[in-house]
């Protein structure tokens, strides 16, 4: 699209790419964010495996049991970084500047989501790499790996949009961080760290039917080459539902916040 004088118009994709590059540069320079989204999941994995793992009987090596849960937790931590980034953006004057350059909310928010997704996939890969080093031995077939990667990506994209909506809802970065607590908390009352049947009876209903459990069960099944039943479909349905609500909420909130 360039002409000889070097002016070309960025389409929506070009704008989203530019906005994504911006978010990646910014979050790579944010030491807090790097620690939260990369180091914290690694540390938590170490805590669970080496400190708690010995006391938890899951019928298999605990590292084998816990890794899918840590992967999901890792995405949730990344989500909090995304929410804080969105809130900080909305607080300053830069959104007005972007809008006056004709860059709409779609490109701005998509930039956040794409950057968040890439960041989270990177931290997921790191955690998985570390898990393999400390004794995680998956038996998945190539198809199983592919399915697990697809599911995890869907989950990360969903969390990224959800965090974006949370970031738009919160007025301060502290509030955004607080709001995202529930995302970080959700993996605990699930089958991520301990089998659900060890929990008190009144918690079973919630733990079995909350969105994180089918995701963790599917990842565990796929990575360990065990039968997964319809869990992946339930997980995807959750993702689709949350995604729809989050995207719609983000669009509405962005309009309200930037009027």
């Amino acid at each position, binding site marked *: 699209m360039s002409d000889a*004088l*070097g*002016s*070309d*118009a960025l389409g929506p994709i070009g704008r989203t790419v530019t906005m994504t*590059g911006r978010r990646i540069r910014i979050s790579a320079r944010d030491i807090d964010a790097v620690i939260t989204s990369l180091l914290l999941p690694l540390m938590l994995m170490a805590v669970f495996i080496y400190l708690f793992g010995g006391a938890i009987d899951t019928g298999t090596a605990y590292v084998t049991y816990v890794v899918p849960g840590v992967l999901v937790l890792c995405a949730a931590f990344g989500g909090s970084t995304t929410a804080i980034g969105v809130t900080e953006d909305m607080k300053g*004057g830069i959104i007005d500047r*972007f*809008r006056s*350059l004709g860059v709409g909310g779609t490109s701005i928010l998509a930039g956040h989501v794409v950057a968040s997704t890439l960041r989270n996939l990177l931290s997921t890969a790191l955690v998985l790499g570390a898990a393999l080093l400390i004794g995680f031995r998956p038996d998945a077939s190539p198809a199983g790996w592919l399915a697990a990667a697809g599911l995890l990506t869907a989950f990360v994209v969903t969390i990224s949009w959800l965090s974006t909506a949370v970031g738009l809802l919160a007025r301060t970065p502290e509030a955004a961080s607080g709001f995202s607590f529930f995302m970080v908390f959700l993996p605990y009352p699930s089958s991520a760290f301990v089998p659900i049947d060890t929990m008190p009876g009144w918690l079973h209903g919630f733990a079995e039917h909350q969105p994180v459990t089918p995701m963790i069960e599917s990842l565990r099944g796929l990575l360990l080459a065990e039968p997964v039943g319809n869990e992946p479909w339930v997980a995807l349905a959750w993702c689709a539902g949350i995604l729809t609500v989050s995207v719609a909420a983000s669009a509405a909130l962005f309009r309200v916040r930037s009027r």
Partner: protein
Amino acid sequence: MHRRRTSHTEPTARTSSRTSRRTPSSPEPHRPDAPAIEAIGLRKSFGPVRVLTGVDLQVERGEVFSLLGPNGAGKTTTVRILATLTAPDGGLARVAGRDVVAERAAVRRVISLTGQFAAVDEKQTAEENLRMMARLSGLSRPAARRRAAELLERFDLTAAARRRAQTYSGGMRRRLDLAAGLVGEPEVIFLDEPTTGLDPRSRAGLWEVVRELSAAGSTVFLTTQYLEEADRLADRIALVDGGRLIAQGSADELKARVSGHRLDLVAAGPEAYLRIVSRVGPEAGRPWRPWRRPEGAAQAGPVPAHEPWQPRQLRHSPDSLTLALPTDGGADEVRALLDRADPERCDVVRFSVERATLDDVFLALTGREAAPHQETAHV
């Protein structure tokens, strides 16, 4: 045809490529004769708060226009409406001949807005910020790099180009912010309180930049709560208070609207001060605003010569035993005022006749001092 500016490297090419891309069937008509900005009856409420209650203004191309008023007067809302970021509840506004609501995209292509909050990324360097803005405004990668380098040079930021903006001083940050607003070579530049919070040296530097922009042919619309700033920079000033314009004109016209001059009297002592106040102040009769013209009479004219004498609105400075009375500065009136203030010729020790300042205008038109004074009073 676009106005050609010193720094304008590829005006026609950019405009034509955009025009053909966005509206291939009906190229945007250029409206070189339209005023840079015109607004009629702008109204805006946020919930129960009526922020603008009917703003009319017109800014010619190439002019520096200043919207002057205290905090909460509606300055920022006016700017946001003109810059298409907020939709008005009522009224009409056009920028460069295009409607800010119906032709929002066209307006955005010819304006820039530098707001009160820095609109640059703290964690990006100046160069990265400017290149990103240049890319978003439609320049190719190499062109964006050139444009960024050019702006860094012009705003004296080349040495700090590779430092993150978070390490910048307030003045540097504001310059970077302004530079970021100029990547798209806007025809109309909106500056919302550009010097608020800056130290005097940075403020002077920013004034210099505004003068350069104006000299290069851009239209500049700036809001400020500093009378001095409007006085020094603006070709025309509109005073805004309580959501509407209460006066419009050049600084000289506005000053002439009050009375042109000010008679400063220094009293012999505290009692003398009070005696003078009781003779000429508002307490001596009904409250009255000096020579305030009826609504809509924006043009300044000669002050009515033979108005019956009335008590004057005063500017008090009891600490220095000084009070100020509006006057036309004529010998007759000054003599008459002195006689009335001090018939016994023992209360006034010194007097001087000063040219009215915008401060006087503000006081006369709103009945109170302009904002920065009030703010210091509260702190």
